C-alpha cells in the first residue's frame, strides 16, 4: 500500500474533504497540512511530539490533529473577537505561482494571433538632428511589408504627462538615439528589419546637449526651441532647457550657516542606470471595427489605454488593454510606451501586429531610465551635532522629453531635505532637457541617488565634528510630531528604531579585518501615492469569493496579496479568493504598478468591498439564526456567533440560499484616497504631484563590505535592511520586496551604470557590459520590519505604508559609507566601480 493510499484511508474518516488537505510522507516523517497557517503549523508540530513510529500511526496522530482543527477545536486559546488573523502571515499559495513555476504562464511576447505581423521600429542614425526628408517608398515596396507608419500618418498632436512636448513619431527633429522615426509591419521580423533599412532619412545634425548643468546656461542650445508654446501643468516652472524647477524653503539658511560651528560642502553625481526588467517590452494590437485590443507588458494599463485613445483620437471605451503575466517592470514599463505605435501600425496593416523589443532597444527607447543627478550639499552643524542649516542644489538630467521629470524633481527635493530635523532648509532642483534617452520613473525615482549623496555628506559632517556618524543621525533623525520638509506633521515614524535595530543586527563580535568596514544610511520615501482605486467582489456558490481589481501585478505579488486582505474580512482562506485582473474591460480602475501604491490604494478598496460583503453575509446569517448581525463573526468559512466557531452556518449555504431567493451577493467599493497633506510655506515642491504623501516609509540599511586596496574591487559581505512600512500585511511579499530591492541597489552601488559617448549614444546597451549583479555577488541580506509605535491612520489598509520602492533607496549609500570607512576615501560618482574606488585611492595617495 502506498504512503499516499495510507494517508487517504487513515485520514478520510477524520477529514470532511481530504482533497483540501495536503499530505507528505517519507520513511522518517509524515504529516498532514491543513489549510490555514495556524492549522498547518499545528500538524507539523504535532508530529514532532511523538518520535519515530509507523507511518500509519503518525498519520493517525496527524489526522487526529487535523480533525480537531477542522472542527474548530483549537489546541490553544484564541481571542473570540479576533478569529481571523491572516495579516503578517506567509501567503501559502500564490495564485500565479504554479503557472510561472511550470512555464505555462503567458507573457505578452508569447501571444500569437492568426495573421499576425511583426513590427520593427526605425531609430535615428544621427541621435540629435533635424530631419530634412523621410522616404518610405522603397520600404513599402518590399515584398512582405504590410504597413509603414511615420508622423505624417498621425494626427498633429503633442502629448506628454505634465508637459505636452512630444509626438508619437519624430516630427522634423529627433532628440535622442531612441526616438521613433517610423514603424514597419511585415510578415517576419527579418523583413521588417530589412524594410527599416530601406527607409531613407536625411539628417542635419544639431549641436548635442549632453551636460545637464551646462544646458542651464542661458546661451546653451535649446533641446526644445519652442518650449514656451507647449501645453503644460500650470505649476510646472519652466525656462529653456529647465523643464521643471522645484524648491523647498524653510527659515533662512544663511542665518543658519552663521550659527554653525562647521559648514561642510560636498558634490556628488550619478550615472544613468536602467530598470532592467528581464522581460523586454512587448505589445500586440488587434483591431475589430472601431475597437482595438492591445496585449502589453505594461505596469499601467489604464494610462496606456488613455494614451492610445488620446493620440489616435478615439474613445477610451474602444481600447481594451490586456496585460498578461508581467516579467518585472521596476518603473521601466510605466506610462504608455509603444501601445499607440503598434495600434496605429495594426490599423494601417489591417492585420494584428506584434512588437518585441531587443535588450538594446529597451535601453535606448523605453525612456524610463534612472536620472543622472548632480548634487551639491551645504550643511551647517554645531559641535554637539545640532544641524543648523541645510541646502542642496540638484540637477536632474531628464533627457529629451519631460515625461515624469517634473514629478521626480519634487521627489528629489523631499529626499535631499533628509529625514532630519533642520530649522533652516533651502533645496532647489532642476529637471533639465538634454539630447539623451529620457529618464523617468525607475523604482523610487531619484531616491537612491539622492540618499547616496546625502548620507555620505552626513558621514562627512560627523567626521568633521568628531562625532560618531550613527550618533549624529540619532540626534537629528525625525520622530513622531516632527514636521516633514514641506510641513506635514509626521505621526507614524519608526526611523530611529530602524537605525538602532539595523546596528544590532549588523553587530560583529570580533574586530573586522583591516580591509572590511560597515556603513549605514537612513532615509524616508514618500511611497503609497494617494490615488483612487476601486474593486468589485462577488461571492460564488461554493463559498469562495472573486475579487476584481484594476491593479497591475508586476511580479512582486502585491496583487496576489490582495486575496489575503479579502480573506481576512470574509473569514476565508486566501486561496478561496480568486483575483481577477489583467484586463481593462473586466476589472476596476487603478493607476497601476507605480508609487508603491498597489496595496496602499487597492488594499483599501478590497477591504471596503469585503466589509460590505461581510456585512451582508452577517445580516443573512443573523436572520437565519434569529440573532443580531452585530454578534456575528466570519471565520473558517462560516458565519457564526462571536466566541463560538462551531455555531452558525457555512458561508456557501448563506450564498446559496441568497441566490435561490434572488440575490447575488456582490458589491463594488471605491473609497476615496486619504487627503494629501497641504503644502506649507513658500516652497513650490508639492504643487505638481508630491507635497509629501503621508505616511512616509522609513529605513536604515547597513552594509559590510570588503575593499581590495590594490584593485578597488568591492565585495559586499552582508546587508541589513530595517524598514518601517507600518503594518506588514503579507510577510512573504514584503521580504521579497526588500531582498529584491537590496540586490537591485547593490548593482546600482558598484556596477550598474551607463556612459554616454560624445555622439549622445549609450555605450553599454546589453547585459554583457551593463553589469547586473549575479546570485554569486549578492550576500546575506537580513530583513527586518520595525512596526512604529503609532500605525498611520491615513495610510493603507490596517495601517500599512508603501513597501515597493523604499527598499532600493539606502543600500548604495550604506555601501558608500562602508567603502569610506574601509579605505578612507569618498567615491563621489555612482556606480562606485572598481576603477573609481581605485582612482579615489590614487588621488588620496598623491594628495
Amino acid at each position: 500500500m502506498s504512503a499516499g493510499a495510507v494517508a487517504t484511508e487513515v485520514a478520510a474518516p477524520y477529514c470532511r474533504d481530504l482533497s483540501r488537505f495536503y499530505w507528505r510522507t517519507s520513511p522518517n516523517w509524515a504529516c498532514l497540512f491543513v489549510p490555514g497557517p495556524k492549522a498547518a503549523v499545528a500538524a507539523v508540530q504535532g508530529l514532532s511530539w511523538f518520535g519515530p513510529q509507523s507511518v500509519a500511526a503518525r498519520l493517525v496522530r496527524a489526522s487526529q490533529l487535523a480533525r480537531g482543527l477542522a472542527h474548530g477545536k483549537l489546541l490553544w486559546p484564541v481571542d473570540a473577537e479576533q478569529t481571523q488573523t491572516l495579516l503578517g502571515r506567509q501567503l501559502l499559495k500564490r495564485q500565479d505561482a504554479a503557472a510561472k513555476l511550470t512555464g505555462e504562464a503567458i507573457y505578452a511576447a508569447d501571444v500569437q494571433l492568426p495573421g499576425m505581423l511583426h513590427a520593427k521600429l526605425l531609430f535615428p542614425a544621427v541621435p540629435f538632428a533635424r530631419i530634412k526628408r523621410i522616404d518610405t517608398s522603397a520600404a513599402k515596396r518590399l515584398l512582405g511589408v504590410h504597413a509603414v507608419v511615420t508622423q505624417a500618418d498621425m494626427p498633429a498632436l503633442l502629448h506628454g504627462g505634465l508637459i505636452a512636448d512630444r509626438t508619437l513619431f519624430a516630427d522634423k527633429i529627433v532628440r535622442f538615439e531612441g526616438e521613433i522615426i517610423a514603424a514597419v509591419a511585415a510578415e517576419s521580423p527579418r523583413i521588417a528589419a530589412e524594410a527599416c533599412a530601406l527607409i531613407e532619412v536625411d539628417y542635419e545634425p544639431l549641436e548635442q546637449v549632453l551636460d545637464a548643468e551646462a544646458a542651464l546656461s542661458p546661451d546653451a542650445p535649446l533641446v526644445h526651441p519652442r518650449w514656451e508654446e507647449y501645453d503644460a501643468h500650470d505649476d510646472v516652472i519652466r525656462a529653456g532647457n529647465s523643464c521643471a524647477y522645484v524648491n523647498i524653503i524653510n527659515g533662512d539658511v544663511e542665518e543658519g550657516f552663521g550659527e554653525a560651528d562647521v559648514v561642510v560642502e560636498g558634490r556628488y553625481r550619478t550615472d544613468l542606470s536602467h530598470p532592467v526588467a528581464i522581460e523586454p517590452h512587448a505589445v500586440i494590437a488587434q483591431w475589430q471595427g472601431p475597437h482595438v485590443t492591445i496585449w502589453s507588458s505594461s505596469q499601467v494599463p489604464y494610462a496606456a489605454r488613455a494614451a492610445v485613445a488620446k493620440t489616435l483620437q478615439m474613445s477610451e471605451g474602444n481600447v481594451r488593454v490586456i496585460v498578461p503575466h508581467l516579467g518585472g517592470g521596476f518603473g521601466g514599463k510605466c506610462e504608455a510606451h509603444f501601445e499607440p505605435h503598434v495600434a496605429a501600425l495594426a490599423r494601417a496593416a489591417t492585420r494584428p501586429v506584434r512588437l518585441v523589443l531587443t535588450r538594446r532597444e529597451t535601453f535606448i527607447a523605453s525612456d524610463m531610465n534612472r536620472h543622472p543627478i548632480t548634487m551639491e550639499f551645504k550643511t551647517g552643524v554645531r559641535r554637539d551635532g545640532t544641524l543648523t542649516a541645510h541646502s542642496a542644489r540638484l540637477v536632474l538630467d531628464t533627457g529629451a522629453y519631460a515625461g515624469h521629470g517634473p514629478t521626480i524633481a519634487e521627489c528629489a527635493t523631499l529626499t535631499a531635505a533628509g529625514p532630519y530635523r533642520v530649522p533652516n532648509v533651502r533645496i532647489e532642483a532642476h529637471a533639465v532637457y538634454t539630447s539623451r534617452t529620457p529618464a523617468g520613473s525607475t523604482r523610487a525615482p531619484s531616491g537612491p541617488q539622492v540618499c547616496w549623496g546625502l548620507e555620505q555628506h552626513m558621514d562627512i559632517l560627523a567626521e568633521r565634528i568628531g562625532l560618531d556618524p550613527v550618533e549624529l543621525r540619532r540626534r537629528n533623525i525625525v520622530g513622531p510630531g516632527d514636521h516633514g520638509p514641506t510641513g506635514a506633521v509626521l505621526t507614524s515614524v519608526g526611523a530611529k528604531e530602524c537605525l538602532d535595530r539595523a546596528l544590532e543586527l549588523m553587530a560583529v563580535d570580533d574586530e573586522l579585518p583591516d580591509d572590511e568596514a560597515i556603513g549605514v544610511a537612513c532615509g524616508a520615501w514618500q511611497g503609497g501615492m494617494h490615488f483612487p482605486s476601486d474593486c468589485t467582489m462577488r461571492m460564488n456558490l461554493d463559498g469562495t469569493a472573486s475579487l476584481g481589481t484594476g491593479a497591475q501585478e508586476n511580479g512582486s505579488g502585491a496583487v496576489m496579496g490582495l486575496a489575503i486582505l479579502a480573506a481576512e474580512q470574509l473569514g476565508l482562506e486566501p486561496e478561496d479568493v480568486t483575483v481577477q485582473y489583467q484586463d481593462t474591460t473586466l476589472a476596476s480602475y487603478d493607476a497601476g504598478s507605480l508609487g508603491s501604491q498597489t496595496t496602499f490604494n487597492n488594499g483599501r478598496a478590497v477591504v471596503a468591498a469585503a466589509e460590505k460583503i461581510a456585512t451582508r453575509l452577517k445580516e443573512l446569517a443573523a436572520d437565519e439564526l434569529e440573532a443580531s448581525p452585530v454578534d456575528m463573526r466570519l471565520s473558517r468559512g462560516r458565519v457564526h456567533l462571536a466566541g463560538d466557531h462551531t455555531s452558525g452556518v457555512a458561508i456557501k449555504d448563506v450564498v446559496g440560499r441568497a441566490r435561490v431567493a434572488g440575490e447575488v451577493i456582490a458589491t463594488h467599493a471605491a473609497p476615496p484616497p486619504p487627503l494629501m497633506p497641504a503644502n506649507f510655506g513658500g516652497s513650490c515642491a508639492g504643487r505638481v504631484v508630491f507635497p509629501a504623501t503621508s505616511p512616509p516609509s522609513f529605513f536604515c540599511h547597513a552594509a559590510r563590505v570588503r575593499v581590495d586596496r590594490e584593485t578597488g574591487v568591492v565585495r559586499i559581505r552582508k546587508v541589513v535592511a530595517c524598514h518601517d512600512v507600518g503594518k506588514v500585511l503579507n510577510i512573504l511579499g514584503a521580504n521579497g520586496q526588500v531582498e529584491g530591492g537590496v540586490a537591485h541597489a547593490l548593482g546600482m552601488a558598484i556596477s550598474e551604470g551607463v556612459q554616454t559617448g560624445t555622439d549622445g549614444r549609450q555605450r553599454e546597451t546589453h547585459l554583457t557590459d551593463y553589469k547586473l549583479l549575479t546570485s554569486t555577488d549578492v550576500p546575506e541580506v537580513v530583513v527586518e520590519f520595525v512596526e512604529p509605535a503609532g500605525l498611520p491612520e491615513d495610510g493603507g489598509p490596517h495601517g500599512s505604508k508603501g513597501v515597493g520602492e523604499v527598499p532600493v533607496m539606502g543600500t548604495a549609500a550604506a555601501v558608500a559609507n562602508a567603502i569610506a570607512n574601509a579605505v578612507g576615501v569618498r567615491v563621489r560618482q555612482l556606480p562606485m566601480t572598481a576603477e573609481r574606488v581605485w582612482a579615489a585611492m590614487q588621488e588620496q595617495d598623491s594628495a
Partner: protein
Amino acid sequence: VLEQVFAPTSLDEALGLMSVAGTRPLAGGTDLVVSERVGRRPFPKALVNLAGLDELRGIDQADDALAVGAMCSYEELLRRERVAGDFSALSDAAAMVGSPATRHSGTLGGNLANGSPAMDSGSPLLVLGARVELASQRGRRVLDVDQFLIGPGETALGPDELLVSVTLPHLPRRGSAYIRLEYRRAMEIAVVGAAAAVVLGPDGRVADLAIALTAVAPRCVRVDGLGALACGQAPSAALIDVCAERSLAAVRAIDDVRASASYRRAMVPVIVRRALRRALDRAPTGTSATIWQTEGAAGDPAPAA
C-alpha cells in the same frame, strides 16, 4: 544571412564542407550566437556544426602531454583531476568562464578560434606551452598558441581550416595559475587577466618562468624574457616584483567600456603578482609557500589558512 547549417558526422566530411567558400564552423556557439544577436557580427551564409564530430572530443592523457579535443567543453576540463593538478592555470580559467550553461556549451577550441583578447583560455595556454593542431583538406599543421593568436578576432586559421586539438606538454615540478580581475563573480569578462607558470628545479630554484596577459593588448600575450631572467633564482618577493614590473612591457591597453587604459596598466603588476604567487604555491617542490600568503582571485576574500 544564414542559409544553411551542416551537421557532418566525421572530420573528413567537415573539412570537405569547410573547403566551400563562405562556410564557418560552429562549436559551442556561445560567442557566435551572442555576437549575432547583439549585432556585432552577422552569421555567415553557412555554418558547419562540429557537435557530431567525435574525433574532436575527449581528452587524451599521456604521461608527457595532455591532448584536448577542440570540442572539449569547459565543464569537461573541470571534471578532469589531471587538468586541475598538472595544468592548474587552464583549470582556473575553465572555472571562470561565464555561467554553468556557458561552461557546458562553450568549448576550448571555440574560445581559442574566436580570438578575443579577453579570452580566458589564451594566457593559460601560452604559459603552459600549448600547441594547436589545425586540419584542412590540404593537410595538417601544428602551431604554438603564440603563433596561432594574431589579433582581435584574428587567428592563424585559414578559411578552410579547423582547429582539431590542443596539446599541453607535461613538465614535472611546474605550478601554474590564472587570475582575473573581475567586477562580478560570474558571467564576467576579464578586465585584466594574468597566467603564470613556474618550473622549479630539484634545488627549489626557478628553472623556468612564464607569464601571459589577458585583455591588455590586441591578443593574449606572453611576456618576453622572463624565463632567462628568473632561471636559477630562488623564488622571492623581489623576483615576483621584478616579473610584475617587466610584464608592463607587453601591455598595449586601450580604453573601453570595461576600464580605462591607465587602470588596466596599473592593474597588470597587481594581477601578475597574484598569479605568480599562486603558481609558486602550487609548484610541487620548493619553499615558496612559506614566504608569502596565498591570495584569492582579485577582490575575493583570502581563503582561511
